């Protein structure tokens, strides 16, 4: 069974540019989460999809971040325009809806560098 995949693995962009990150969850996982780790700090929650609906977006830092999950499969996270403080590693995780045990499986992350 394929794990959670993320694309790209690295992205280097200039301040003001746009970047789109993609996450493909494990097949059949309706829960999809985005997290971010800014250098040296905790991994912080960004948002949670249940299928195509946003269940919790309390962690989204501001309106420069837009997440979508059309069709309830893969998800994209767009940052527009990117700022220096957006640099970090963006993780995606997925889990089964009402699954047991309730375990989130993580992707390898996308390392975003904003110059």
């Amino acid at each position, binding site marked *: 069974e394929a794990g959670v995949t993320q694309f790209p693995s690295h992205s280097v962009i200039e301040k003001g540019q746009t970047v789109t990150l993609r996450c493909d969850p494990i097949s059949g996982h309706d829960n999809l989460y985005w*997290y971010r780790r800014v250098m040296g700090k*905790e991994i912080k*929650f960004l948002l949670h999809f249940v299928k195509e609906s946003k269940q919790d977006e309390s962690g989204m830092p501001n309106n420069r971040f837009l997440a979508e999950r059309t069709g309830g499969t893969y998800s994209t996270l767009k940052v527009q325009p990117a700022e220096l403080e957006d640099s970090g590693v963006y993780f995606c995780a997925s889990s089964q809806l009402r699954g047991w045990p*309730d*375990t989130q499986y993580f992707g*390898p992350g996308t390392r975003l560098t904003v110059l």
Partner: protein
Amino acid sequence: AQTVTQSQPEMSVQEAETVTLSCTYDTSESDYYLFWYKQPPSRQMILVIRQEAYKQQNATENRFSVNFQKAAKSFSLKISDSQLGDAAMYFCAYGLYGNKLVFGAGTILRVKS
């Protein structure tokens, strides 16, 4: 708000010896889950062990075991017979069923040969 604290930024252990990583958390919930995730230098985060708060028995997975003290809100990870492959960043995390995880800052574990 729930918080998770890992007070050890770095730990070292000799190969074949035992090391314990500390984690404390704060919550007003009674039914929750605790996790230890491992992130090797290759960056893929892997679940090491999980504990359901309603279970009194400490979880174990081969060489990995936890000491879960619910009243003290403590959840430490013990790694026995440490191996070079155990070298990684270890994250402690707290979660409610079907909800986001709250992570600690992580502990870098170095294993010396």
